[in-house]
C-alpha cells in the first residue's frame, strides 16, 4: 500500500476507531461512511472500540503475505468485538494456545513492512485476555 493510503486510516488502525450509527444503534469496524442497514437515513459518528472480543475462527499462516515473511508462522483470526462488529487481525501467542471462542484484547504492534520502500506499518493486533 502507498504511504498516503495507509496514513489516511491511522487513527482507526492505531486506536480501533470505527463508526456507530445513531439511527439504528449498530457499530461498525472497519469504519464506514454509510450504514448498510439505514443507508441514507443513517447518521454515523466515530466510535472508539474497547478492543475486547472473542475469536470466531482462526488459522496459522505458514505461507506469509508479502511483507509478512519474517513473522511466519503467525496466527490470524476473525475477532468479534464485544460491541458487535467482527474484524480480521493477528493474535500474538503460541499456535497451541489458539482456540475458537477464546477471549482476546487489542494491543498496538508492528503489522508488516515493505522492504523496497522501508515502510513499516503499525496497527492493532490481539493477545489472549
Amino acid at each position, binding site marked *: *500500500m502507498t504511504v498516503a*493510503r*495507509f496514513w489516511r*486510516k491511522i487513527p482507526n*488502525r492505531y486506536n480501533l476507531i470505527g463508526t456507530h450509527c445513531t439511527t439504528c444503534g449498530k457499530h461498525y469496524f*472497519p469504519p464506514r461512511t454509510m450504514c448498510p442497514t439505514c443507508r441514507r437515513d443513517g447518521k454515523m459518528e466515530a466510535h472508539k472500540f474497547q478492543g475486547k472480543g472473542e475469536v*470466531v*475462527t*482462526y*488459522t*496459522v*499462516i*505458514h*505461507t*506469509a*503475505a*508479502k511483507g*509478512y515473511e519474517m*513473522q511466519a508462522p*503467525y496466527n*490470524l*483470526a*476473525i475477532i468479534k468485538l464485544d460491541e458487535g*462488529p*467482527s*474484524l*480480521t*487481525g*493477528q493474535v500474538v501467542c503460541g*499456535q497451541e494456545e489458539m482456540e*475458537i471462542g477464546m477471549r482476546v484484547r487489542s494491543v498496538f504492534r508492528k*503489522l*508488516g513492512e515493505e522492504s523496497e520502500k522501508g515502510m513499516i*506499518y503499525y*496497527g492493532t493486533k490481539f493477545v489472549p485476555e
Partner: protein
Amino acid sequence: MRDVAIIGIGCTKFGELWDRSFRDLFVEAGVSAIEDSGIQGEEIDSLYVGNMSGGRFVEQEHIGSLIADYAGLASTLNVPATRVEAACASGGLALRQAILSVASGYDNVVVAAGAEKMTDVGMDTATDALAAAADREWEGIMGATFPGLYAMIAKLHMHKYGTTSEQLAAASVKNHHNGTMNPIAQFRNEITIDTVLNSNMVADPLHMFDCSPISDGASAVVVVAADIAKKYTDTPVYVKATTQASATISLHDRADITTLDASVVAGQRAYKMAGMTPDDIDMVEVHDCFTIAEICAIEDLGFFKKGDGGRATEAGETAIGGRIPVNTSGGLKACGHPVGATGIKQAVEITEQLRGTAGKRQIDGAQVGMTHNVGGSGGTAVVHIFSRNR
C-alpha cells in the same frame, strides 16, 4: 427477454505454459470456439472478456481492445469488446454479460471469453495480485492471504460440523481423478488422501494440495439467440438461468463464516429463474479454489445440508457416478485456475457434458448442468443453469 444458447466452445490447455503469451492463449481459445460454432467473424456483434488482473500479471490493461485486435475483430470489423472484472468470478461474469446482451435483443451473436496469464510473474507477485480480491485495507494489511481466509472458513466448518482434513482432502483426490480424464487439465495424475495431508501446510488446516494452482489458460464460448441456434448446430445448449449476487467483500463481515451468502442467493435465484430444484441438476462445476470452497459450495447451492458436504464428499456422492457429480472437469484444483478463464471453462465443461462429448468423464444421460463461479472469499457469485432442452 429472449432465450439464449451456447453453440460453440473452445479452451486452451491449462497449466504453466511458458512458451505461450497472453495473446496466443486467448486467440487459440477464441478461434476454436468460433470454428466449433460455425459462425463467421462478420456475424459477431460483441465480445466480453473476463480477466482479473492483466495489469499485475502481464502489465497490460485495455484487454478488450487487445483481444479484439489479435482475434482479428478490431481492424476492419471494429467489434465492441468489453473487459469484465470480478476477481476469480470474472469469467462467469463475462459469460453473464454476453448472455444478457443477447437476451435483451441488442445482440444476436456474442463471444464470451476468459483469459489469464499468471506465470509470467513470480509466485509472490501472483499471490499478492490474488490477495487484491480481498479487502486490502482491512484484511490484507493484517497479514491475510487468500488461503488464510479460506483456512478460517475451514477451521470453523470443522469446529461446527466435525468436518475433517481427510474429508477436505477427498475433494482434491476426486478432482485429480476427474482431471486424469480431461485433456486440457493442468494436472492429470491421481493422488491419495496422504498426498494431500503430507503436503506443506499453507494456512492451517489447508495444505498445498487443498489449494488450486497458479495457471495460464484461456477459454471461450459463442452464445446466440436460441431462435437461430439450430442454424449453426444440432446440439445447442440452452441457458436456463444466469444469476449473480454480491455479499460483503470481507469475510469477517458475514453473518456465518461457513456460508457464502452470495452463493446461496445466486443459487436460489437460478433455481427460481429456471423453475428447477437441486434435484434437477445432473452435474455441477463449482468454484473449488480450495477444497473447503467445494464443500461450502455444494452445501450453499442446496445439494447437501449445511455441514454435510465433507461427509458426502468422502462417501463418493460427488464423484462421477455418485448422486451429484461435482467438477467432472477436475475443477480448479486439477484442471487449473487461470482466474479470468475459469468461469468460462466451467460452461465449456457443462456444454461438453450436455452434448455427450465429455469422453471418459461423460455423465450418462446428462440433461441439465450448473456452473458456480466465485470472486474473492465470496463477495461475488455467478451461477448458470444449462439444459439440452429449450
